[in-house]
């Protein structure tokens, strides 16, 4: 809802924007751990990179030479092997150990240049997607033009505290615009909603129809488009992490910046066993169960 206000305030005020060059203080680079793995039968990747200068547009630098291991509470060890550019992979095919039992806890351990980083996560349950729908709607307002709107139908489990990340793919491409980031706490937006054990609330089911490139209106589907939706179970900590990513990446500047809250780092669940101010670690480790369903929009 804050978004709404911010868009509106931007609407009201004329302001002038100019590109400027600013001198930023050089910060020591930090280790970034991107460790979102799941129970899908495909190679799982944990990537290690370094933060880069703010105005540096190069591809992030991968970090090689680390030992990356995940162990579960049943004693299984999943070894992630260095696969170039800081990507460490483990392939679930043709191995006995699997990520599969809900309730199992997982420990991540990274050893790099004599330092040890750890994190933990638990595999949570995920509901199946009952159906995908496309509905033709007349123009409702300038923000919602005429066209086909996608929607998924799934029901949250009974019992409070299930958290999910809903990922949508349009024609095989993951909708990764920050404004399309879709997360749920039980069947609602957040813990305070107390919407538990129901079908996901409409805005969450509807959010699989992306915004246009200008980010000022929804872009409906057209005949021939395909939609694939996945629900990933995530830990509550991961839910809050994504909420912060959402807040930070959805900033769009303008007059509302003066009302905006100060920029802050998103949180991390990676623990540096020997904390060191000049060698910080950021990032997140989460293990998900995934359910998915696809559909093509036909005439």
């Amino acid at each position, binding site marked *: 809802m804050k978004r709404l206000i911010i868009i509106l305030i931007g609407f009201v005020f004329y302001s002038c924007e100019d590109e400027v060059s600013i001198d930023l203080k050089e910060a020591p680079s930090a280790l970034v751990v991107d460790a979102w793995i799941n129970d899908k039968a495909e190679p799982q990747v944990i990537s290690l990179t370094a933060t880069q200068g703010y105005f540096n547009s190069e591809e992030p630098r991968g970090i090689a030479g680390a030992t990356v291991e995940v162990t579960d509470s049943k004693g299984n060890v999943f070894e992630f092997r260095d696969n170039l550019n800081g990507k460490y992979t483990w392939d679930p095919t043709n191995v006995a150990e699997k990520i599969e039992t809900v309730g199992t806890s997982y420990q991540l351990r990274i050893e790099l240049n004599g330092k040890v980083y750890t994190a933990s996560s638990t595999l949570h349950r995920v509901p199946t997607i009952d159906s995908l729908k496309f509905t033709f709607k007349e123009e409702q307002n300038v923000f919602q033009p005429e066209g086909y709107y996608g929607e998924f139908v799934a029901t949250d489990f009974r019992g409070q505290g299930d958290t999910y990340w809903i990922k949508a793919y349009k024609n095989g491409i993951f909708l990764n615009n*920050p404004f399309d980031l879709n997360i749920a706490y039980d069947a609602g937006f957040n813990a305070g909603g107390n919407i538990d054990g129901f079908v996901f609330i409409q805005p969450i089911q509807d959010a699989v129809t992306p915004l246009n490139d200008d980010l000022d209106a929804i872009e409906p589907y057209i005949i021939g488009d395909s939609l694939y939706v996945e629900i990933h179970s995530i830990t509550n900590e991961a839910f809050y992490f994504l909420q912060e990513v959402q807040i930070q990446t959805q900033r*769009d500047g303008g007059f509302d910046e003066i009302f905006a809250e*100060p920029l802050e780092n998103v949180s991390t669940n990676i623990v540096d066993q020997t904390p060191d101010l000049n060698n910080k670690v950021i990032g997140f480790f989460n293990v998900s169960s995934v359910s998915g369903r696809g559909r093509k929009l036909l005439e």
Partner: protein
Amino acid sequence: MKHTSLVAFLAMIFFISHQSSAQERHTVNGYVKDAENGEELIGATVLVKELGTGTVTNVYGFYAVSIPPGTYTFQFSYIGYQTIEQTFDLKENVEFNIELPVEAQQMDELIITDEAIDANVSDIKMSKNELDIKQVKKLPALFGEPDIIKTIQLLPGVISAGEGTSSFFVRGGSADQNLILIDEAPIYDPSHLFGLFSVFNADVIKDSELYRGGIPSRYGGRLSSILEVRTKDGNNKRLGGSAGLGLLASRFMLEGPIKKDKSSFIVSGRRSYVDVFLKATNQDNLVHFYDVNAKVNWKHNNNNRFFLALYLGRDVFSFEDVFGFDWGNTTGTFRWNHLYNDRLFSNTSIIASHFDYKLALEDDAQGFDWKSNLHELTLKQDFNYFLNTSNEFEFGYHVTYRQFSPGRISPTSESSLFAERAIDKMYALDHAFYVGNQQKVSDRLTFRYGLRLSVFQNIGKQDVFIYEDPKDNIDPTRIDTVSYGAFENIKTYVNLEPRFSARYLLNANSSVKLSYNRMVQNTHLISSGTVPIPFNTWSPSNPYLEPQIADQVAAGYFRNIKDNSIELSAEVYYKDIQNVTDFADNAQLFFNEDLTTEYRQGNSWSYGLELMAQKKEGRFTGFVSYTLSKTERDVPGVNNDNPFLANYDRRHALNLVGTYDLSDQWQFGANLSYSSGRPITVPAGRYQYDNYQVDYITERNGYALPDFHKLDLSATYIPKKNKDRKWQSSWVFSVYNIYSRKNAFTIYTRLKELDDDVYSDEKEAVKISLFPILPSVTYNIKF
């Protein structure tokens, strides 16, 4: 320690009153008024020439002088008015009301007398400025709308967050630490159009003053400043009024007697009319604001005076009939001035203030209506006791009841997915007992000292949550809920606030002053932005939020030159704030039932030097102000526990403000402002995270925006009128930011846009500036 100081204080009071009874005394008292319209004059000087001493009228225009029998010449004077003398052969108490005529020839150079106005030097008050509304009206204004808050932002010790905002920052305090009063009623959000204008309509303002230090014990509740705005009482001699037509808004005001010299009224309104044009062009985006001020004033007799004042203001925004929001303040003040005896003046006020905002979205599935509000009701009983020419006592009791409703969401259609939901209301009772005395120790030395006892209670009805870890805002876990019934005490905070000021006259035209004050604030603004927005909510102190406490010392040197026509002052201050309210990183302050877990309180300290030179009379009037200051905060859990600069910290601020009356037809105004840039947080690096570009931040407020400077000019043209005409018109031409400098409002970063909608992976920094050169014209009439 606290108790000993209280005992010592009471002993002092006893000593003074004991001493005073030794001699027979008579009292001369009354009101000093403007001869033209019957408005009371606040702060007019009453001098007993034979004794070389006297007093000034209080905020109700009342004075009392208690002296031994004899023959005395009283001299009544006020800036811009003729000085009048009156001789009394004092054998008994005398009631004497006087009306001062306006100085005949404003254009003439000041007529210098032996007893010229020297309040800057002789008054005990320091760190205080009065704003002359006539001068404010002559100064250049944004969109031609005269605004006292924009002028306040130019005063020494006051910092602005940027142009186009109605908030101000006093001596290292945040915007919510200012107590903004209109006819004694607090205004919770003084902004129209998100701060483009303030809620104060210049046509009805009689008097306004800003205290940034040396705050008397009758004021309390906020840490950093008191802005007291008083509206006109209404002309009790003849019907009159004014109207104005500006680019964005128009105004009217009507005032007059209900019963001549006894009772009067004033009513005024202001409304913006951009929406009228938009409607004409078939636009569905409507924006407007309005203000209504009304007051009835009834002087029953010299011993009993009543008034009732109302203010109502609102902003309304609506977009395509889809979204809408609005906010506004409503206040009401009923006041009774009563004279119990010749020396005991009483003021009883009942004050109500209300602030609310609403957001609404029309949609079948997601339609909602969101409301949040705050009510308060205050009873104030203040006494002034004019003991003798050396001691002026004040004491009183204030009690305020507050109700905070942080938010209620209700569905706007039956199919809306929103269920009716509300965050628990919060309630508080705030008592304050105060005493103060202004004591003239010798011809050179005057003290003012006082104590304020603040007893604050957070009361039910409320369910208070107990958390496993009250600071865990990421995943708050409630382990218990304690329910409190209506008016049941949840938490009490008792604080003693000592206040002290001293003035020592070095000679007839220079003095040194010193002050210390402790202030306590129990209403906290829930916002981590730099400038408050109307959608912020407030919270009382509670088990998770301690009162904020500020201690400030200030010292100053005051000097008048050129026969008091130029006032100079230099002040230094140091202010320390305990429990300054801040919020956790990534705090979720909007509709959060576990909001208490987001609170982080810490310390703030600020120090500075403030210089001012002011010329109040003559063809040329104006002031130069310079502020050198620094404000830092240290809040555990914020910025890796390291101290950081406050959002509104500016090292230097320099303002030159002047008006020049060329002739009866032409008057000119100018305003040149310079300040160093305020700090903002910028990322130090970045990383890619699962396709999201995330900023890496190492330090809060580590980057300073570029310097700010601009020049505004204005000209007022008053056409000659023929004698038969009853009304007088004037034109005010204003040019804002005359050399069109693109001052940085802020700088933010984003992905570089290569082409329409094609973004590269590269980041860029973008400066936002608000107002280029903006000419405007306003037409005013007065009758």
